[in-house]
């Protein structure tokens, strides 16, 4: 048995997966409660209790949670102050990196080869730490430029901070193997900010499971679509931010299990989130996701949110139909205050008045929808309103009856949405196709990414998807169980891991960055690219909580270091990963 629970903004959903003898899992139970944002633990436990009531707790293989804890804490800024200590060296003016509630800029620095150019000053460090103490700060983030090439200065500051009895200390070099100092600073800041809240949460959940005599391992879903054991999440809780969209994409994968290139649409009340699989593998955000408007090094799945959803308010501004970004309430046809895209679908007969969404039955009133759309007709400047590819908009005869007018408005609304989403899709594809490359080989090999299919969740999305797909020229598939798709995604996802091995044999150092290893290469040993690759593989496997998940090498580069026409060594970098995928497959009947 596997349990997946997804805490969403409004609902908390859970699924219990049970396997047959052939290890084919099926959804045995689902559960749904309203989310109590002030007490996420309680929402989780209510779902959990309902899923396991009467079940044999000893048979639970794992529990995977996708929570909004990190996201909420950051978005609502419900966190304790963070003291930031920067070791920037020369470069960009560090002024703008002072995200902390208190900030200190130290004068030491490490260069791009990981060489210490200027040592730290102990008195500077002590002065900063004293200042933070008296300001009542207990969370620290210590970040140096090029600290992933040599973490010694970050670690030195950390040692001082431990002597000063600081409680939670985030060091920049443990957060990612990627270069980018400003992102490292932002990531460390956010990580430090959520650490106390995260630790409280872990403690509370652990206790609750003990009380229920559940011994199964507990995992959290990360925003890269992979899971992480609860204990290991302590050092880098920031990885669990924004796991909702990742749960949705992994749920789509679990419930459809396509191996080709397709778009994933998650059509909600106010937004439509667009995701992408390339040959069955979810695509990552280049460089890292943004949190609170700041780019970070947190690896996350590619999603783009378009402010168009089923309940978006529809207005006419300067003669043009404008959809969103606000939501004033449910669809007019369900008693809401403003016309919405859902009303448009009703008027067009794409949704029935008596509908079943996510197991809930919903009653719409088509006449109300019609009445809500009709007043827009005269405000629209039909000359400039592009008719889109709609058959109604294309013919020029003036509609006579109110019904015909409302239909024309409804067509206009759907055309606006599909044009906007179509534009976003084009934009996503072209930015991925034109992503920067740095070798002639990659530049000449660049290929086009052409998805043929849109996959989306059921519910009101079904009618939308059908409309969007046909207008934009895609085939479509609407997956079942959409109400609990996120929870299914959490339950089925496997762990993800990344290992970056950076070796500079001229300097005589190798870094296994994500494992926190910075060590000398044995003198005399000939450290080769093969060896670096082996290390990357080994450390990825070693850190994985499950055996037999394939590790792939994603990047490999090697440069001869030439000084005075002589090769003095090599600089190599190898990245290995366990990419997001499914640990558990649902039986065919479930897809």
């Amino acid at each position, binding site marked *: 048995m596997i349990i997946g629970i997804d805490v969403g903004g409004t609902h908390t959903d859970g699924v219990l997966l049970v396997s047959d003898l052939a290890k084919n899992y099926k959804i045995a139970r689902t559960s749904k409660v309203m989310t109590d944002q*002030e007490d996420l633990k309680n929402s989780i436990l209510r779902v959990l209790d309902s899923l396991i009531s009467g079940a044999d707790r000893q048979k639970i293989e794992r529990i995977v949670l996708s929570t909004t804890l990190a996201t909420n*804490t950051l978005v*609502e*800024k*419900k*966190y*304790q*102050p963070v003291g930031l200590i920067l070791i920037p060296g*020369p*470069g*960009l*003016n*560090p*002024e*703008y*990196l*002072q*995200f*902390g*509630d208190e900030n200190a800029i130290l004068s030491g620095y490490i*260069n*791009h*080869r990981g060489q210490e*150019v200027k040592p730290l000053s102990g008195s500077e460090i002590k002065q900063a730490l004293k200042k933070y103490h008296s300001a009542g700060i207990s969370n620290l983030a210590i970040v140096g*430029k*090029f600290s992933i090439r040599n973490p010694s200065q970050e670690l030195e500051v950390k040692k001082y901070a431990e002597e000063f009895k600081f409680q939670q200390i985030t060091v920049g070099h443990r957060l990612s193997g990627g*270069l*980018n*100092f*400003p*992102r490292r600073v932002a990531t460390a800041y956010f990580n430090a900010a959520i650490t*106390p*809240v995260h630790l*409280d*949460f872990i403690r509370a959940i652990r206790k609750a499971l003990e009380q229920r005599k559940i011994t199964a391992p507990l995992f959290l879903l990360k925003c890269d679509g992979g899971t992480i054991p609860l204990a290991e999440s302590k050092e880098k809780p920031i990885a669990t931010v924004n796991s909702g969209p990742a749960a949705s994409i992994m749920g789509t994968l679990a419930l459809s299990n396509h191996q080709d290139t397709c778009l994933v649409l998650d059509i909600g009340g106010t937004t439509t989130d667009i995701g992408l699989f390339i040959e069955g593998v979810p695509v990552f955000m280049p*460089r890292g996701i943004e949190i*609170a*408007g*700041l*780019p970070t090094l947190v690896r996350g799945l590619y999603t783009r949110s378009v402010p168009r959803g089923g309940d978006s308010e529809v207005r006419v501004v300067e003669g043009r139909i404008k959809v969103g970004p606000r939501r004033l309430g449910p669809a007019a046809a369900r008693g809401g205050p403003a016309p919405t895209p859902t009303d448009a679908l009703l008027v067009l007969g794409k949704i029935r008045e008596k509908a079943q969404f996510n197991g809930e039955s919903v009653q719409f009133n088509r006449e109300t929808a019609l009445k809500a759309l009709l007043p827009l007709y005269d405000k629209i400047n039909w000359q400039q309103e592009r008719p889109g590819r709609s058959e109604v908009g294309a013919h020029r005869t003036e509609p006579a009856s109110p019904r015909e007018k409302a239909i024309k408005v409804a067509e206009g609304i759907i055309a606006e949405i599909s044009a906007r989403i179509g534009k976003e899709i084009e934009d996503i594809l072209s930015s991925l196709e*034109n992503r*920067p*490359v*740095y*070798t*002639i*080989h990659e*530049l*000449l090999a*660049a290929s086009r990414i052409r998805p043929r299919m849109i996959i989306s969740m059921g519910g009101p999305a079904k009618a939308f998807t059908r409309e969007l797909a046909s207008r934009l020229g895609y085939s479509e598939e609407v997956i079942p169980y959409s109400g609990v798709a996120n929870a299914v995604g959490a339950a089925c996802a496997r762990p993800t891991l990344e290992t970056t091995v950076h070796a500079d044999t001229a300097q005589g150092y190798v870094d296994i960055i994500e494992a926190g290893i910075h060590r000398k290469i044995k003198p005399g040993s000939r450290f080769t690219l093969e060896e670096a690759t082996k290390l990357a593989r080994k450390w990825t496997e070693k850190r994985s909580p499950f055996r037999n998940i394939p590790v792939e090498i994603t990047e490999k*580069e090697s*440069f*001869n*270091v*030439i000084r005075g*026409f*002589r*090769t003095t060594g090599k*600089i190599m970098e190898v990245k290995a990963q366990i990419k997001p995928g499914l640990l558990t497959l649902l039986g065919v009947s479930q897809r």
Partner: protein
Amino acid sequence: MSATGKNETPAKRERQLSSRKPTARNSLGLIFFPAFDWAISPTHPEREERLLYTRDQVFEEGLMDIENIYEFNPGRAGKKDVQRVHICVPDVEDVATDSHLISAGGAIRAAELVLEKKVDKAFAIVRPPGHHAFRVVHGTRGFCNINNEAIMVERIRATHPKMKIAFVDTDAHHADGTQEIFYHDPNILHISLHQDGRTLFPGSGFTDELGGPGAFARTLNIPLPPGTSDEGLHYVLDNLVLPVLEDFKPELVINAAGQDNHYSDPLTNMQISAQGYAELNAKLNPDIAILQGGYSIESALPYINVGLILAMAGLDYSYIHEPDYNPADLKQSPAITETIKKTVEELQQLWQKRSRVDLEEFYDFTGRFSTREKRIYYDTDGISELQQETVKVCPDCPGYLIISSTAQHSSSFRQNRILAVSIPRLTCDRCHEEARVFFAEIEEKEKERFDYIYLQDLKDDTYFRY
């Protein structure tokens, strides 16, 4: 859930987080293409490693995340792009590989971005460089095969034929290739600041190289003594380059941004610092910058390139300096200052009287043709070229060129003799007709004497080889 920070209002935090994000004052397109899989040879200065540390520094600084800085891939220059500039012997495919075409494609992308107003400015950090490639190309010279910036200019002029363009080449080596390609072109002002040719490859770039009779003073050379520092460079900039640009009023300014006059460069003897470079760029305010040489790959390039990117973007570059930077070590001697002042004064005077110069006297020609003899040495490939270039001098147009060239390959005893007629885009109809008639005659009469005969006709945009 834990207690929240009591003194912190959300508004204050919001301010701290987002308002500090830097935004480039000028939107900047970056074409960063280090060609990590290409080298002239394994230990050559133009090797895979050249932009490795620059990549590390640029990425670690997070420059690509800055609001208003955008990263682009290079394109790949087409055969015709090359033919508009070069006469490749025997053909384009023999001298330009993918790496060269992509480097030129990087320059072209930079120009497109600026001309289409997608960005205010663009910087192509591409390799290999181009400024030592002449019109006739027999092989690799000064690490260059084809002239990226000239190819870019001809692409620009395919749609903007009369655009006035200024080059300021700040590489430590004289930009002899670019100079030669535009030597007779009155719409291109080519200014090169470089280490004195008596002390460095390619041994040219003296104050008396001033352009052809149809483009007098459209070529300016400022040879700088070895040991010139930021002070000397900025003296030239303030007192000569900027005033000349002011007078010329170019529609486009291109900085051929070589970085080998840095104090740590292994191939040259100059004393320029990253701060000096960045400030030069800020003052010059170019629309487009294109990397040229620069072989202090570890100690200089990472810092210079970050400085240039920030300067072009209109951001604060005052925190950039090399690990071993010490301004006191980089002071130039009074003798150097004196020499630079004299050179600047000479060129100032020349610039002032440029329209009153008796060209027949100056170029020592009578009638309608002016001829130069050139010996060009290809250091990289070991080729000696002897060239005779005759330009038709026409009061109405830039005329046309007749070039004969013999290249001796030292390695193979191979010799190539070629003859070419090159017709600029803005040549008048009479000269165009005359050049084509001439070409038809030589094609008939001279083909025995030459291995190849070329026609490079930009006016018709047609290119032949026989």
